[in-house]
């Protein structure tokens, strides 16, 4: 089903991420992943290794023991302007678009192109889950009322002080859409440092869906289906005044 494109002139999106987690691949795949820098260097000239670190502390009859291990798990690639990043790891893939964010189509298409490249290199994978994440910074006048800009915010009884210095709100809600399937949205809000006379409200919408062993075509159909869900929730979280501010 086609989804109505959503576009705001002053889009508050600071980062959008599509990520797919897969069952851990064999470490021998790392050698294949080492060919990636050459293949993407025209659009992603900067790359760095990604490591996973493990620290273990144990207390036993013989006294305390501690050990640390670090292992290479993949690579991160970055475009010249640092606005696009992707990770190719033994446990998955992610594509990140930083501001300015244009629209869903170019974002999704670039993620899809890079996913195909990843799949070409690593071979068969068993997917575990996928996620779509939109990190927004809504800049509003301060002091000001949260209710003027957001429809979801912490409510406090009148006996409480009504001036909020900062807050951290995290809500997890189950999702069950026909096409994208069962999932979970985690909505996080807090205040970020901002310019004088303003407040910058972090609105982080993180959509996570199970995708056990689904083939690529199904996976991307599910990913595409999340576009409508994330648009619906984003629009519903803002008041008309907030929408006007970013239009």
């Amino acid at each position: 089903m086609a989804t109505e494109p959503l576009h705001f002139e002053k889009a508050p999106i600071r980062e959008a991420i599509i990520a797919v987690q897969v069952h851990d691949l064999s470490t021998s795949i790392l050698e294949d992943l080492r060919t990636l820098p050459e293949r993407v260097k025209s659009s992603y000239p900067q790359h760095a290794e990604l490591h996973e670190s493990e620290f273990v502390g144990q207390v036993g009859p013989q006294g305390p023991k501690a050990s640390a291990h670090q292992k290479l798990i993949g690579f991160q690639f970055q475009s010249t302007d640092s606005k696009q990043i992707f990770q190719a790891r033994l446990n998955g893939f992610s594509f990140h678009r930083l501001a300015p964010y244009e629209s869903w189509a170019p974002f999704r298409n670039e993620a899809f192109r890079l996913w195909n490249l990843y799949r070409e290199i690593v071979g068969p994978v068993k997917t575990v889950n996928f996620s779509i994440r939109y990190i927004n910074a809504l800049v509003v006048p301060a002091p000001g009322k949260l209710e003027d800009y957001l429809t979801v915010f912490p409510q406090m009884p009148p006996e409480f002080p009504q001036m909020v210095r900062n807050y951290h709100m995290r809500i997890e809600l189950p999702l069950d859409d026909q096409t994208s399937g069962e999932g979970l949205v985690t909505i996080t809000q807090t205040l970020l440092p901002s310019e004088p006379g303003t407040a910058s409200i972090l609105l982080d919408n993180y959509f996570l869906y199970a995708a056990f062993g689904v083939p690529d075509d199904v996976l991307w159909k599910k990913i595409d289906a999340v576009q409508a869900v994330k648009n619906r929730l984003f629009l519903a979280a803002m008041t008309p005044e907030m929408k006007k501010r970013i239009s």
Partner: protein
Amino acid sequence: MPAIASFDTAYLAKRRLTSRSRELTAPTSSSRKVFAFFGGLIAEDRSTSKFLQVEREYQELWTSLELYANLANNWDSYGAEKPSRASVEATAEILGRLREELFLPNRVVPSSEGGIAVYFNKDNKTGYLEYRNSGDVILAMYDNQNDPSIIELTRTDADKSKAISLIRSYITED
């Protein structure tokens, strides 16, 4: 219905600059707590978001800058001048620009020449931008193989852009 208080870093800086001794001896000052609070919240998600990672690093650098804004003269016991308000503000401005460009330095340090310096490091390369109390702005780029490149700049917006561009090219090129 709750209202949002104005959180403005410039206000915090001004407040600290006008009440140095009390703030310096108060490690649980409200602004520090605010930054620590942000840090804690953002830490959990920073591994997967470049934006949140930059926000977190920016807050840490800002906390360092706040501390250096409160130094006294002879802070290094070798007679160094405390960083002037102008050098702190110039550093705050460049940090703001670097935050927008998602290209933050590794460290902010007080300069023994009097002023504040920001350091960028990658592998064996160092980029160094110093805002001195005298008003001088020094950009230096060096590694362990070549002669250092030292450029004198001004505090204009154009020179801020030039400094960022030069350091970015130097640090990120292979």
